[in-house]
């Protein structure tokens, strides 16, 4: 009522102004942080597209990696990557699904289950180069055959396993307990309940896990450097070195040749496109499935 402000009133006014200013600054910084992330996403994608598009042509998919200064493609590397990633999924997915099943259906909240879950989480974030060293000492050094495609596939499988274990475990636990109880009460043996009821209920989630694992390993370079090594030529021999897209990109980027750089960026564009499509696909499957269950 009184137009004359008391000292307390003025202090509180000042305090309010200060708090609002701090709030405004913080909110602006928060927007700036989001912008920071988006700018770098856009920048990296733009670099890949602008530098990679030049190298995209038919020869990229039909010819093998060329010697310096000559034209060629990455056909052998695409083939090698497909073979090794395919093998890694074939080895890793059944193992991962089985281990995830144990975690969700047999271990539950028991201590040993917690331990395995913990170990799996650590493997999930463990440096991939360390897994490469592991497979090197386990396979390459022991077998005496030297670098081989199969060693590369095994090192990728070790990356696949924890991803699939985790998604399988989580997805199976999302299946309502009534489904298990209903099936068990009909006298269906537990393995059949799991395979025919639970896997069907969680199938979208499990497929998502496999897609995410594939997206993750298709760009993996570090573990392949000293397991599958590289190969300049087209090779179908699993016991000998095999080319792969990331390793070829690594070799070409480190070279001084312009033609190799172009090929490396073309490979980068194809790889990024593939990985982003896979992760978007995984997301789409998951969200569509969620809608249907609600």
């Amino acid at each position: 009522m009184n137009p004359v402000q008391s000292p307390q009133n003025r202090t509180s006014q000042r305090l309010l102004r200060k708090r609002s200013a701090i709030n405004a600054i913080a909110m602006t910084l928060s927007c700036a942080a989001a912008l920071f992330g988006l700018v770098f996403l856009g920048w990296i994608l733009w670099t890949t597209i602008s530098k990679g598009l030049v190298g995209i042509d038919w020869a990229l998919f039909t010819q093998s990696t060329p010697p310096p200064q000559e034209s060629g493609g990455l056909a052998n590397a695409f083939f090698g990557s497909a073979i090794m990633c395919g093998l890694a999924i074939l080895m890793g997915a059944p193992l991962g699904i089985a281990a995830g099943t144990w975690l969700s259906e047999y271990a539950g909240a028991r201590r040993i289950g917690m331990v395995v879950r913990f170990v799996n989480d650590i493997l999930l974030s463990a440096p991939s180069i360390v897994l490469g060293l592991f497979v090197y000492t386990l396979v390459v050094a022991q077998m005496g055959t030297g670098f081989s495609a199969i060693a590369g596939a095994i090192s990728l499988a070790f990356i696949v396993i924890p991803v699939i274990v985790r998604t399988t475990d989580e997805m199976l636990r999302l299946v309502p307990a009534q489904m298990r109880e209903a099936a068990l009460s009909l006298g269906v043996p537990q393995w059949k309940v799991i395979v025919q009821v639970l896997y069907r209920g969680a199938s979208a989630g499990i497929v998502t896990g496999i897609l995410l694992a594939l997206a993750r390993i298709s760009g993996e370079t570090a573990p392949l450097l000293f397991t599958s090594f590289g190969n300049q030529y087209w090779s179908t021999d699993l016991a000998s070195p095999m080319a792969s897209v990331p390793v070829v990109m690594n070799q070409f980027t480190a070279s001084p040749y312009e033609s190799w750089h172009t090929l490396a960026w073309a490979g980068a564009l194809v790889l990024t496109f593939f990985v982003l499509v896979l992760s978007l696909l995984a997301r789409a499957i998951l969200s569509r499935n969620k809608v249907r269950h609600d």
Partner: protein
Amino acid sequence: MTSIAVTHTRLVTQARRDASADRKFRTLVVLAAFIVLVSLIGVAFSMLWGGREVLSEQGLGFFFSTEWNPVENRYGALVPIFGTLVTSVIALMIAVPVSFGIAVYLTEVAPVWLRTPVGSAIELLAGIPSIIYGMWGLFVLVPMMTAYVTPWLNDHLGALPFIGELFQGPPIGIGLLTAGFVLSIMVIPFISSVMREVFLTVPVRLKESAYALGATRWEVVWNIVLPYTRSAVIGGVFLGLGRALGETMAVAYVVGNTVRFSASLLEPGTTIAALIANDFAEATDSYRSALLLLGFVLFVVTFFILAIARLMLLRLSRREGVR
């Protein structure tokens, strides 16, 4: 009568077959889980085994020596360990505040319709293969560092007392600072997605009580959301640290790959992972042994960091469970 007996025996054999199939299935999945458990131990042990040669020759001196001389078979882990820690610390110094900002933006600031697309876009950053970060760093970031950032740092921060030495160096663009910066962009999606998830677990009741008392948005975030989720936020930061420590290809291109100690962040250096990636395939036997031992060091360090991260994250979810 007979038909009942026949049915009965058929039921019994059926039950027996089911039971044995159940047992087999159970053995199968237990075995798979066992492989997961064993592989972690196998990873650690295989590298220690591979590094036994250098470990027995040089003993614990390996961990405290700065000399790295493959020609004379003298190996010291201190320089790559130093490089790994420095690049990761730089990465966290940039990534933690930015990730916090992103998480706040996605949970409190952005209009609701914008949250999902922006959140997914940030998460796409995590999907880009690390080698592409490396190529981008080498061909785009390094020239920019050379042309603008390094001279600016030299002029403005290089003259300061105490910290000036960190920012003096040749304008070559590659070095620990560039590597740390690329790493920070790579770990932002991991840290921010953990923070975002845990911020969403804060009970709306708590936040609205604070708003009702007249708190500003920032005060709610700082005084309500952050204390409530503190342990999980620290867990997320450690998760990012674990990623940064072991990141290989992105660092290998921009760190310079020089095994030499220098006080400046602008000088080339190396990290454990980059050193292994560059030299392992062509290394001699004893050099390989040294690199395997380095790999063991990296694994042990990341193991503990990730273990702390998981325990911190578990704390919050356990509290959630109790409620």
